[in-house]
């Protein structure tokens, strides 16, 4: 783990379908400035910049960190760019934390983003085009069979995905940055939407959003001087596994289980459901909540849907998941993982506003990507380790 590292600043943009009022640089700068303001710092106080986003084809700018160096105050500083597919927002935060934990830097700015309105994400995610015919369309086409396998394996009733879709959208109504705000969201409303990829309905999927999320990470000394409470990084982990091979369990991926075990060990957690106060987990399709409840060890295999059905993951449940509204409510893909990490930090700093989980002291941030093969997680806490 190395030296202590804390989140002392968080900044987000409003997440929307289209941010035509800002360029990509303007979008990132909006988030970065808010993070600096939260940290009580200016651009000159930052020692290094780490940025992350999902594939460059989303906006059509190759290696955009070069263009963004000026807007992010990176002139004369180390700047690097992380790309680990959908988990990238989490991985980027972990790489930035490493720069503090290793003792190299005092204050690191990290920013993740996507401006999806400048492209067509479903086309970009239809992998193998233009070289081969693709058998799946978009991420939903890829994940739907995994969800069907989960339902078949666990015997979950068909309405579980709908419950998650409603719960996360209800939470989003309390989050000023959330993209989808659907007053009066209900099961009937979700069930009335078209089936996109059996069994995923329109309102059981994430939106395409423009948005950016930024954090300022700091050493112990720098954290002590911060104006607002810090969130201490108690553990970080990344795991990857190959996308295709016979026997890979895409419903309960080993990489996710290993990363969870690693991050719990670092944070001294043996029973995540009891010892964590809330979790921000990457749920882009509603059925991933019960699947990840099992993958992350909150319950045994086949039990996840029962926790969801019993309301355990609701804002007033014993283990609130995605109090911010989650990926189902805002999905600027490259930023989505960092938003999970940042929202976990806001919770333990007591700065989550209306969607604050009362008394939250330890929280999990989680991201996954690729063919459910890349995982990034961290646990943050109110108390210094």
């Amino acid at each position, binding site marked *: 783990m190395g030296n202590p590292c804390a989140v002392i600043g968080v900044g987000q943009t409003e997440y929307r379908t289209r941010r035509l009022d800002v360029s990509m640089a303007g979008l990132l700068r909006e988030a970065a400035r808010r993070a600096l303001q939260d940290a009580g710092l200016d651009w000159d106080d930052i020692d290094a910049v780490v940025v992350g986003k999902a*594939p460059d084809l989303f906006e059509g700018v190759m290696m955009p960190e070069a263009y963004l160096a000026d807007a992010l105050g990176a002139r004369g500083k180390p700047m690097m760019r992380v790309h680990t597919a959908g988990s990238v927002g989490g991985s980027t935060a972990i790489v930035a934390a490493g720069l503090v934990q290793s003792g190299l830097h005092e204050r690191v700015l990290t920013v993740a983003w996507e401006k999806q309105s400048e492209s067509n994400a479903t086309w970009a995610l239809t992998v193998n085009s233009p070289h081969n015919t693709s058998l799946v369309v978009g991420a939903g086409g890829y994940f739907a069979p995994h969800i069907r396998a989960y339902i078949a394996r666990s015997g979950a009733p068909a309405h579980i995905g709908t419950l998650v879709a409603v719960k996360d959208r209800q939470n989003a109504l309390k989050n000023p940055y959330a993209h989808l705000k659907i007053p009066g969201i209900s099961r009937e409303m979700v069930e009335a939407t078209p089936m996109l990829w059996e069994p995923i309905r329109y309102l059981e999927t994430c939106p395409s959003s423009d948005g950016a999320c930024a954090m300022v990470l700091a050493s112990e000394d720098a954290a002590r001087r911060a104006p607002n409470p810090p969130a201490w990084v108690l553990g970080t982990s990344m795991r990857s*596994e190959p996308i295709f091979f016979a026997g890979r369990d895409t419903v309960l991926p080993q990489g996710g289980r290993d990363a969870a075990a690693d991050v719990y060990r670092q944070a001294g957690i043996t029973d995540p459901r009891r010892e964590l106060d809330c979790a921000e987990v990457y749920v882009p399709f509603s059925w991933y909540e019960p699947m990840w409840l099992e993958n992350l060890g909150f319950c045994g295999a086949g039990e996840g849907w029962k926790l969801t059905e019993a309301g355990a993951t609701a804002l007033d449940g014993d283990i609130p998941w995605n109090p911010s509204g989650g990926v189902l409510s805002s999905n600027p893909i490259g930023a989505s993982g960092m938003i999970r990490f940042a929202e976990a930090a806001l919770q333990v700093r007591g700065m989550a506003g209306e969607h604050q989980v009362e008394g939250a002291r330890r929280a999990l941030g989680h991201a996954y990507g690729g063919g459910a093969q890349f995982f990034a997680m961290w646990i943050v806490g109110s108390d210094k380790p």
Partner: protein
Amino acid sequence: MTREIAVVAFVQTRHRTREDGLSEVEMLAPVITEIKERTGVNRFGFTCSGSCDYLAGTPFAFVQALDAVGAWPPISESHVEMDAAWALYEAYVRLLHDDIDTALVYGFGKPSQGDFREVMTQQLDPYYLAPLGPDQVSLAALQARAHMERAGAKEDDLRAVAARARAAGRDNPFALHLDDPAPDEDYEVAPLRPYDIAPTTDGAAAIVLAAGDKARELCERPAWITGIDHRADAHGLGARDLSRSESTRVAGERAGARGVEVAELHAQFTHEELILREALGLGDDVTVNPSGGAMTANTVMAAGLVRIGEAAARIHDGTAGKVLGHASSGPCLQQNLVCVMEGEPRG
């Protein structure tokens, strides 16, 4: 936090102008196999790679490469969409934590799949610059002109750089073997002639990093990283002095470049070597690019990593005591990384 970390193994492909018939993964797989065999290590504490989706024109180039690495059981792994020299930096930082002692770093690229000069245009500011369509070589020509006007370098000086690089490259079995530059070649984009421009190259490379005693166990004479730093300049070409590389100067100072015997510079144009030499304060006593450098093996997304590997190889074989590997990213040397390695760890 201080920990002794070294380059203990380096493997590269025989770089080719056009690797017909092989996919990126097929180029990479033998390199990964060889570095595992050479070190006897099959599982690494951390793995990090560099590549660029725009070379294949399809997202997630690194995902398929993971299959070549053998990521089962799941591994701790990350990726930078930059030259793999930055993947090496990420792995170096990860190794500073004392819970792991080895890291695998690799990079690969197959620029022959597209028109590389045009592809690189997509790297520019998407609102103001890219729509104008300036290609990589035209921008480099601006920088060459700026440098020549300030420093007084002549076109003959540029050709001398190309001649030395090509002569060295012909002694390197992994590089392209190119003829001496012909003085009567027409301009590509004045003042640059074809021989002033690195040939884009298909290929892959891998490095293993190890810490402390593990490094000594894996390598008879590890190349200890005694300094590594990287810096960015402004993107806007009018917002910086194109005739110099300020980011290289700062990175070189912070990495401790003074006193190196050998420097492997990621110069993709002859004038870039002159700018980098000046920024790093390399005198005539420093051997520059004994491998031929990127002018004979510009394996896109791995060329910077290859420079670190080539420099480390001079420590491994005992022919040098202090060396430097350099990598660059962005238009006109916008971002630069300097890695200084020595035969003895800094005590």
